[in-house]
């Protein structure tokens, strides 16, 4: 936009062709007087600014030299989240980001942010604080990392805008550790703003769209909700490991570069592998089963899984973190279903009890109902689900697979009747399951397989696997699978293998559904989908 000087009233009149009116002349004189006064005021201030008057705050502020680990001094640095009334009258050091700063007369209010915690700081010109220091602090760009030493002071009124609402920091030293660019591609406040409720017209409507967020993920991840989401995601992983370790599972690591497609060959990424090609693993299933055949009894693995699906939906990624487990059982595959169900319950309970603050931080930006679950989890059989759907008016055959809308509806029906967001659906029709699924011995139409659902979306698909090479070959032939291509899979069971079952979940999907988020990209730190390979 071009910026031009505005013409004065007298000039305007002259340009119009006529002699300046009395009123215009009077106005011009007034403006000239005002300009002269302003100049005089600036001139009077100039000497003060430039004067070599002593800076009483010298040595208390400035930019720190680049940290190359030149010093090894030990000092106590407090966490912002720990500061409260108990620290009142203490002088503390904190390292935080400058979230906002606002100068007002001889003082400057700053908000210092550390993770999800914020505290208000004040720099006021006075006995120990110079104007120069105030000016320096005012000019620090937002998002810079600063070291601040200050006196903790209680406040008469709670500071609503900060997480540490009952104290503030009277800043005595203010050092810049790492300077941020003055222009930010997105504002943290904008990226943290919740979607306004319907009818709330007063709420600010400035939002940051998904692509801008993902393009500038470094900044986007600094929002309180994102800080919480990835801590919760880490919690899911930790709780999964803890629950299985307690049940004597062994963590294994399976190869991600494989010679043959693990799930039929479709949707697989091909990579160049020296003089030949290889594939990225779609699932660790074969390796889990080989570990069972190698007498590991109970195994689990946490690792990346790749799917070359051109699905641009809210719940598909081309790379995600798979949490997979496989377990040999004694007599019935329900031993495995119960183990997986109990693992989920432990994860959900752990999140509820240990991550309440994080969940509430996410809910502030993305409101959702608390995740409801039952212990032990609800287990329904496929015909029961079909019956419930039919009662709701869905036309579905006994052996039809559930479509995504039917799954969603079933989730809502289950929630209405049982008040649970998690349930297990057992005994899927054999025709809709892969060839390696064990048929149900009492009803040949069904199989010993199960899906697990969170908020009406499938998160785990598992089954008792056929561990007998003869039956496996028969079933593969029945499904029209080329036996040559799966020879290595069938051979894995040639030397004896215990009956076993298992399943796998996607970490991002579980986190998304637990928090009631609407897009899996919100729970993948650097998501990969058909349209995104960066950052």
């Amino acid at each position, binding site marked *: 936009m071009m910026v031009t000087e505005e013409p004065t009233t007298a000039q305007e009149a002259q340009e119009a062709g006529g002699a300046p009116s009395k009123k215009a002349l009077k106005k011009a004189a007034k403006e000239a007087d005002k300009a002269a006064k302003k100049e005089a005021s600036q001139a009077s201030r100039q000497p003060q600014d430039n004067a070599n008057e002593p800076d009483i705050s010298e040595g208390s502020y400035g930019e720190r030299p680049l940290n190359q680990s030149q010093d090894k001094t030990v000092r106590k640095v407090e966490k912002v989240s720990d500061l409260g009334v108990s620290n009142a009258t203490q002088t503390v050091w904190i390292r935080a980001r400058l979230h906002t700063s606002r100068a007002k007369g001889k003082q400057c209010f700053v908000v210092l942010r550390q993770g999800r915690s914020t505290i208000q700081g004040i720099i006021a010109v006075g006995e120990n604080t110079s104007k120069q220091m105030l000016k320096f602090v005012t000019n620090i760009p937002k998002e810079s990392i600063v070291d601040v030493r200050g006196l903790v002071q209680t406040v008469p009124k709670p500071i609503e805008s900060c997480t540490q609402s009952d104290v503030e920091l009277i800043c005595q030293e203010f050092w810049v550790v790492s300077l941020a660019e003055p222009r930010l591609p997105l504002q943290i406040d904008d990226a943290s703003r919740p979607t306004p409720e319907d009818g709330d017209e007063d709420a600010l409507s400035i939002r940051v769209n998904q692509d801008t967020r993902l393009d500038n993920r470094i900044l986007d991840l600094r929002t309180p909700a994102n800080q919480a989401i990835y801590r919760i995601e880490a919690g899911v992983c930790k709780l999964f490991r803890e629950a299985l370790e307690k049940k004597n599972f062994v963590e294994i690591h399976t190869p991600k570069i494989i010679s043959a497609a693990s799930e039929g060959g479709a949707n697989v990424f091909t990579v160049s592998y020296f003089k030949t090609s290889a594939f990225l693993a779609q699932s660790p299933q074969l390796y889990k089963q080989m570990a069972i055949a190698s007498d590991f009894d109970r195994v689990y693995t946490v690792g990346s899984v790749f799917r070359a699906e051109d699905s641009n939906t809210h719940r598909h990624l081309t790379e995600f973190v798979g949490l997979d487990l496989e377990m040999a059982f004694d007599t019935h595959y329900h031993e495995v279903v119960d183990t997986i169900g109990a693992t989920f319950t432990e994860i959900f309970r752990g999140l509820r009890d240990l991550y309440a603050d994080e969940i509430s931080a996410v809910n502030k930006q993305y409101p959702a109902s608390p995740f409801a679950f*039952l*212990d*032990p989890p609800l287990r329904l059989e496929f015909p029961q689900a079909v019956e419930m759907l039919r*009662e709701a008016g869905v036309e579905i055959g006994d052996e039809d697979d559930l479509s995504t809308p039917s799954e969603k509806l079933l989730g809502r*029906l289950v929630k209405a*009747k049982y008040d*649970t967001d998690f349930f297990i659906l057992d005994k899927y029709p054999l025709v809709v399951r892969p060839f390696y699924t064990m048929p149900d011995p009492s009803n040949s139409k069904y199989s010993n397989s199960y899906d697990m659902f969170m908020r009406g979306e499938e998160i785990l698909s598992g089954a008792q696997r056929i561990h007998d090479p003869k039956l496996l070959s028969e079933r593969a032939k029945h499904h029209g699978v080329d036996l040559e291509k799966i020879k290595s899979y069938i051979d894995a069971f040639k030397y004896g293998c215990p009956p076993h079952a298992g399943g796998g979940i996607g970490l991002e999907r579980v986190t998304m559904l637990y928090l009631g988020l609407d897009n899996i990209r919100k729970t993948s730190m650097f998501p990969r989908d058909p349209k995104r390979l960066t950052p």
Partner: protein
Amino acid sequence: MYHLRPLAGVPEKIDLPTCMYRIKPLNGIQTASLSESIVPVKRVKMDPQLQAIEDRQLEVIARLRQLRDKVNDMITKSGGVKAAQSKTLNKTPVKCASKSNSSVSSRPSTCVSSVLVDATLPSEVVIEANPCRPPLSLLFFRTLNPQVRTISHVHSSCNANVDEKLIALFTRETSGSTVRVIWKDIKGTRLTPLALGNFGAEGEANVARFLSRVLAKPDSVLNYDALSPEDLVLVDGVLESSELVDTAPEHFINALQAYLQQRGSSSGVANRTIADYVGYSTLRYLTKLKSKQSLQKSLVDWMNSLTNEVPALC
């Protein structure tokens, strides 16, 4: 009285208007005249999708009719057995109201949908209850049908651990209809038989009314619908006051005592009504809050006799 000649000559056939304003029918059905509208209507450009829905509805209605006929048939077939059972029950001092008695239908209904009344237990019902006030009456009803399977779940709203004994008490593995008991942070007891619709029962008394209808034999005194009007007043007194026990415990004790006094010597295992079961459950809850010593001896004896009926409660 007087025979007058018409003032003006009116023709014998005249097209009189059939309505004040003529408008085009909204449903797409064209009626040329009033007389034609009486004969089967002609459909103009019926949407095939609409037609398919209509056909499906007719099919559903036909299937519902078949189902109703089947159910009626089953009721008729089992009628003989019920009659034999009622003969023995009629000997009991508590009067049973006849099914044909109009007072049965005129009773104040509970929240349970009329669809479920007089039906059998659905394949799966959900009872949500607070572990602080377990619906012990369910245990008595469960003894009426050994095929009723009960499964206990703890809902995520329950932060405190639910007593393992309580979970075990409400768990029974069989292969019949399922009652899922969900221990939840909830004010009272709630029953949900279906996922769709607003059918359900709130409060242990109403849940017991529902269970008595579907689990007790139709002519049994345990069946709420089979109670005579006199007994119903007493039973309802206990049931209603049991729901208000937190605010008016004395009212409940008085109602229970009045009920037991009225029955006098007739109290016995074969003569229990749902007031006994709900009253017992409520009294157990009350004595957990207050001392049992303040209770009259007759009440304590009555409680002990009921406790002995379900060994797991001892």
